[in-house]
């Protein structure tokens, strides 16, 4: 591919701009960054609009914007499960998470494991929740780099060999530096720019491409019939239908359990800010839904037959479909803007994810098990350092581990993180559960889920046979049910035996 100087210049200019913004953010709503909740939660001071940009930038990542259309491009309708998924998350956000916000605000909790520690008085359960969060987030950070790599490569920059890795390394050093110095304030501020660019890009695409092709109908007409709908299930099976539904539901249950989602929620200035956002954030789902259709637009425009794009598809596979469509349809200067939007869209979640995992490590492993007597300043310092280590780890991961493993690990991440649901979400409503029962439930779900995923060749959907009917079901949902069953039964037993552990919270903490 030829180096596109115009696109690259626009891209670099925007990158320099957000770098400056990232460092400037330290002064914004200035707080004492030697306190973990100031560095890692922005002082819990973000109002409705900032939270809208922050959580929007956090949940709808560059990887999503590249990968979801890629699935539609390659496999068709199944990839659209991202839409029901991102509809179902918001009733959950509205009902459940203001409760977490209020109890966290009252007791100074920074992570979900903090809450579990206080609620169930069991540090090993809290450790399980913390470790699951860190483990599930690492491959997610690595995948953000994939999004960046694709757009950098699409501008004609060589992305193989050491020189090819250099742009990513530079981007991550910048990211690491401003995260270290500004904490959560940096991605919050950059998210505003990123989302403005993303909205601009998507609107340009959904106006220009249908005009070029002669209407929306022309796009769908160009898509092969088999890709347009879910395959009709064979006799005796729910086929793609139960796969689609369970993927949407399982992903929705898992999403807000990730440390980076919790960080976004806890940085809000009140529970009402969270509630308002549950009604406002679906604007991003609409964006994602329209962007998903870019996969079909890429089919309709015929990008796969364009010789100048063949090299990109060879290197990045279907993940190249969105960049390919942008290259095929827009002038260079706009390509620069669109690609910068995607690349910055990788930095924002990567920053929040690394902050969230750093918070978790520091609070729930370092302070709990390694240095219980640490001062607030030491705690904050440790979190800053850990955020660097985590980003370094993600870089190493993406350079030395085949991409396939990152994808597998991210799938496993969803199966793993959902196992913290009984402790975190059900724990917000009831103290019925016993800490050790939850621990064993978690362990069961975690190990059975990992085994099923492995035995299933890392395909997310496992065929369950019940009374002669086959229900292909997302492994996360299956193992969550198992986890809950184990937790309930063992809670009855353990509670009957006595000692229930100390609950540091009182009912009025939850509202």
């Amino acid at each position, binding site marked *: 591919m030829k180096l596109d100087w115009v696109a690259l210049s626009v891209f670099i200019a925007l990158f320099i701009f957000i770098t400056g913004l990232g460092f400037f953010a330290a002064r914004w709503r200035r707080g004492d960054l030697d306190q973990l909740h100031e560095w890692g939660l922005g002082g819990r001071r973000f109002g409705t*609009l900032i939270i809208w940009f922050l959580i929007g930038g956090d949940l709808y990542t560059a990887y999503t914007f590249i990968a979801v259309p890629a699935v539609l491009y390659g496999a068709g309708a199944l990839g*659209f499960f991202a839409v029901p998924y991102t509809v179902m998350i918001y009733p959950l956000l509205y*009902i459940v998470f203001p409760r977490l916000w209020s109890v966290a605000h009252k007791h100074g909790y920074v992570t979900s494991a903090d809450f579990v520690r206080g609620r169930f008085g069991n540090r090993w359960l809290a450790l399980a929740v913390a470790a699951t969060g860190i483990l599930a987030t690492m491959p997610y950070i690595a995948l953000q780099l994939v999004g960046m790599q694709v757009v950098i490569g699409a501008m004609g920059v060589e992305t193989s060999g050491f020189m090819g890795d250099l742009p990513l390394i530079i981007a991550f050093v910048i990211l690491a530096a401003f995260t270290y110095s500004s904490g959560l304030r940096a991605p919050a501020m950059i998210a505003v720019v990123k989302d403005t660019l993303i909205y601009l890009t998507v609107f340009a695409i959904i106006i220009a491409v249908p005009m070029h092709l002669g209407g929306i109908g*022309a796009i769908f007409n160009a898509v092969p019939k088999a890709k347009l*709908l879910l395959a009709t299930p064979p006799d005796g099976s729910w086929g793609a239908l*139960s796969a689609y539904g369970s993927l949407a539901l399982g992903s929705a249950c898992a999403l807000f359990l990730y440390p980076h989602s919790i960080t976004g929620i806890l940085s809000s*200035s*009140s529970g009402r800010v969270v509630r308002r956002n*549950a009604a406002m954030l679906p604007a991003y789902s609409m964006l994602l839904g329209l962007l998903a259709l870019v996969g079909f637009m890429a089919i309709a425009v015929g990008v796969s037959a364009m010789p100048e794009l063949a090299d990109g598809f060879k290197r990045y596979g279907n993940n190249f479909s969105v960049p390919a469509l942008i290259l095929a349809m827009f002038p260079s200067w706009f390509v620069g803007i669109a690609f910068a939007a995607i690349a910055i869209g990788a930095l924002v979640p990567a920053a929040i994810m690394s902050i969230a995992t750093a918070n978790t490590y520091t609070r729930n492993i370092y302070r709990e098990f390694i240095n219980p007597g640490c001062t607030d300043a030491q705690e904050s310092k440790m979190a800053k350092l850990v955020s660097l280590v985590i980003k370094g780890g993600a870089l190493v991961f993406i350079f030395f581990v085949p991409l396939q493993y990152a994808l597998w690990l991210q799938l496993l991440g969803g199966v793993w993180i959902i196992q913290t649901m009984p402790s975190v979400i059900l724990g917000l409503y009831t103290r019925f559960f016993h800490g050790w029962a939850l621990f064993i439930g978690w362990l069961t779900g975690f190990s059975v889920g990992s085994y099923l995923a492995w035995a299933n060749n890392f395909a997310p959907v496992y065929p369950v046979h019940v009374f002669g009917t086959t229900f292909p079901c997302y492994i996360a949902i299956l193992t969550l049910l198992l986890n809950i069953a184990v937790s309930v039964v063992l809670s009855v037993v353990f509670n009957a035996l006595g000692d229930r552990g100390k609950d540091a919270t009182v009912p009025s903490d939850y509202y």
Partner: protein
Amino acid sequence: MSDNHDDHKPVTPVLWARLLLLLPFVALLWVSSYNRIEPTLAGFPFFYWYQLLWIAIGALTIGLVYKMER
């Protein structure tokens, strides 16, 4: 949209309104009800416009519940 200082007052849940929040789950998990092409809308097959429509319905429902519980 401005954030008021009564933001910290506990909300009183309105139960019947909260039941509305179940609607998107029922509609979207009933996959066979929308896995079809017809009727199309402005060129979108049913499968696509119907699910996109639920994004808006979901948001409006949450907005309504928020108003009810203020």
